């Protein structure tokens, strides 16, 4: 889960990384150097799109912040407006600690070319070390980073301390990424994180029971919020640019791989997918719970519903019952617009249940895909008439 700048900075501050004095508007921090007004969005490149503004007076802060509050940057709503004391800058650097998934290790990346997208910086200007988890971040590695950035004397010593604190933040907060860009060296020789991009590990939430959920989630669709409550994985494609064109299809699959493959079966044929749910073991929690998950799928308001479940050791009866129960609720889609492909132990029983309930059933993914595409094409033709 991605955090907004001010949420990420709060985590850095807990580990002793200096941040600028700041507050969520309408609160405004005291400052005798002026203020920066910063739109809290997850997307990068805010500065270039008017998401970071400077103000000299309190009146100007209020005027600009009022305008920014409740607006949008691109297609993302501004979740909050963060006002910071303006920093004096001697030089901008780059520092990040992250999980390098292919190497299976934590990497630390630093560069004297800060304030720009790190992808734009030539490799020769980027220093990188990999942390062996069995020994931790070693002294020689921190010194290597410091030397690569050409830092000497007191600022160099403090930089080493900052690197350690940044890696501590990554590991102790169970983050996948902690990026400080720009990292500012002030004329007084202090290091301050001027921005923070933090991505937390969804799977480590249980280790941080006191931590609030990410603020950006609050503007998610009702569909996404309901998926989280039910412990399933939801994908809401209606927010994509360009948005899927009607008639759309909503998908439900078991297992990440199968759900993605099902998505491809439809999307690669040029048909709009409104979104998907990956059951993520929901079936083990019973028929009623699974019916709630399926009702959540209906929130996508798609024209066709495609259920694709392939189980090895489990019977699909419970899923069939859950589907029929969800379909008998008010505002459920018409049964003729539902396509079910199910495989599992005792699948003949599910076939009988579903066919008696008026749903199309097939054990074959190819046949199910063909049926979905045929329904969509019929609906398109009717819409033209």
């Amino acid at each position, binding site marked *: 889960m991605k955090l907004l700048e001010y949420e990420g900075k709060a985590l850095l501050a807990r580990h002793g990384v200096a941040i600028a004095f700041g507050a969520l508007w309408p609160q405004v921090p005291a400052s005798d150097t002026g203020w920066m007004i910063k739109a809290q969005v997850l997307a990068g490149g805010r500065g270039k799109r008017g998401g970071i503004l400077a103000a000299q007076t309190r009146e100007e802060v209020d005027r600009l912040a009022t305008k920014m509050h409740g607006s949008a940057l691109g297609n993302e709503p501004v979740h909050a407006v963060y006002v910071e004391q303006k920093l004096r800058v001697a030089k901008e650097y780059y520092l990040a600690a992250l*999980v390098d*998934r*292919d190497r*299976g*290790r*934590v990497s630390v990346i630093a560069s004297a070319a800060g304030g720009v997208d790190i992808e734009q910086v030539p490799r020769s200007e980027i220093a990188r070390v990999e942390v*062996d*988890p*069995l020994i931790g971040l070693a002294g020689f590695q921190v010194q290597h980073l410091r030397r690569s950035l050409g830092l000497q004397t007191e600022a160099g010593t403090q930089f080493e301390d900052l690197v350690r604190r940044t890696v501590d933040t990554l*590991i102790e907060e*169970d983050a*996948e990424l902690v990026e400080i860009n720009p990292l500012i060296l002030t004329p007084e020789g202090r290091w301050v994180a001027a921005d923070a991009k933090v991505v937390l*590990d*969804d*799977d*480590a939430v249980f*280790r941080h029971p006191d931590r609030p959920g990410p603020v950006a989630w609050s503007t998610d669709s009702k569909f996404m919020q309901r998926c989280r409550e039910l412990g399933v*994985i939801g*994908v809401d*494609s209606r927010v*994509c640019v360009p948005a899927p064109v009607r008639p759309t299809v909503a998908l439900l*699959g*078991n*297992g*990440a*791989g*199968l*759900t*993605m*493959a099902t*998505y*491809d*079966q*439809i*999307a*690669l044929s040029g048909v709009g*997918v409104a979104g*998907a749910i*990956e059951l*993520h073991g929901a079936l083990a929690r019973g028929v009623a719970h699974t019916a709630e998950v399926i009702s959540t799928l209906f929130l996508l308001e798609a024209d066709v519903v495609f259920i694709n479940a*392939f189980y*090895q*050791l489990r019977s699909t009866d419970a899923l069939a019952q859950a589907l029929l129960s969800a379909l008998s609720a008010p505002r459920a889609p018409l049964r003729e617009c539902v396509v079910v492909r199910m*495989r599992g*132990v005792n699948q003949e029983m599910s076939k009988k249940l579903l066919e008696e309930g008026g749903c199309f059933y097939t054990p074959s*993914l*190819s046949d199910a*895909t063909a049926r979905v595409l045929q329904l969509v094409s019929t609906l398109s033709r009717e819409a033209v008439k």
Partner: protein
Amino acid sequence: MTILVGADSRILVQGITGTTGRLFAEKMVAHGTPLVGGVTPGKGGELLAGVPVFNSMREAVAATGADAVLSCIAPQFVTDGIFEVVDAGIPLVCLYIENIPVHDAIRMCAYAKARGTRMLGPNSAGVVSPGRANMSDLNDNNMRPGRIGIVSKSGTLTYEVIDELHRHGHGESTVVCLGGDRVIGTDYADVLSLFEDDPDTDLVVVIGEPGGGLEYAAVAQAAAMRTPVLAYITGQGSPPDARMGHAGAVVGDDERSRPQNKMQAFSSAGIAVARLVTDVGALVTQTLERAPRASS
């Protein structure tokens, strides 16, 4: 011969007295998988599914000569559990549990590598050589011994590909699930090199997905192999930034993580690529006809 597990494997279930562990143990015994015991601290001396339960890995290894472990213990104990398996010198462990914090996975993988244990997972559906040994959640009745190898992060997609193989008259030598997490113990290239040395595997299907770049090492390995390889990369239509259920499967800012670029890498190396999962079966037949394995 097969790879990783076979009729001469000596398998333990870690957490054998738990709900998941017990189900696996009973399934293994019912279908003739060489299960030699299980481990649950405090339950040593019991019998379950006809095999002995031990208090520790070291005891179990001393008594049974076990060489493979399927780990299905509760998530809060799993890091220590994997450390214990590695410490006992077991050459192969499959970690079935999902939702493991990535920093725990990093430590487990590093320790396993340092001590010479091959770890599949976290979040691996397991490994199975049909008709010989099944250390996975796949149903023995849904598999057919044969000559096609499969290596995949996803479990459910192997079900689909196996189904595809059967529709086209093929069967499986070994099916290896690497796990869908961001950091995993074994990669595609490792498994491909094992398949290359297996005289009973005629072709390998690589199933990739969005996220990370382990598929690129697989391209290099596959290009150097005599055994033909075929790739299918799922998630081509996935919206950017959406977690589709696998912690690792996110189409991110990184160009390399995109399925289309992975497919391109395979194609450029002369490796056949299936566009849809329902194209895999026919493409396997076609690839086998075009490139019969040199008899060696």
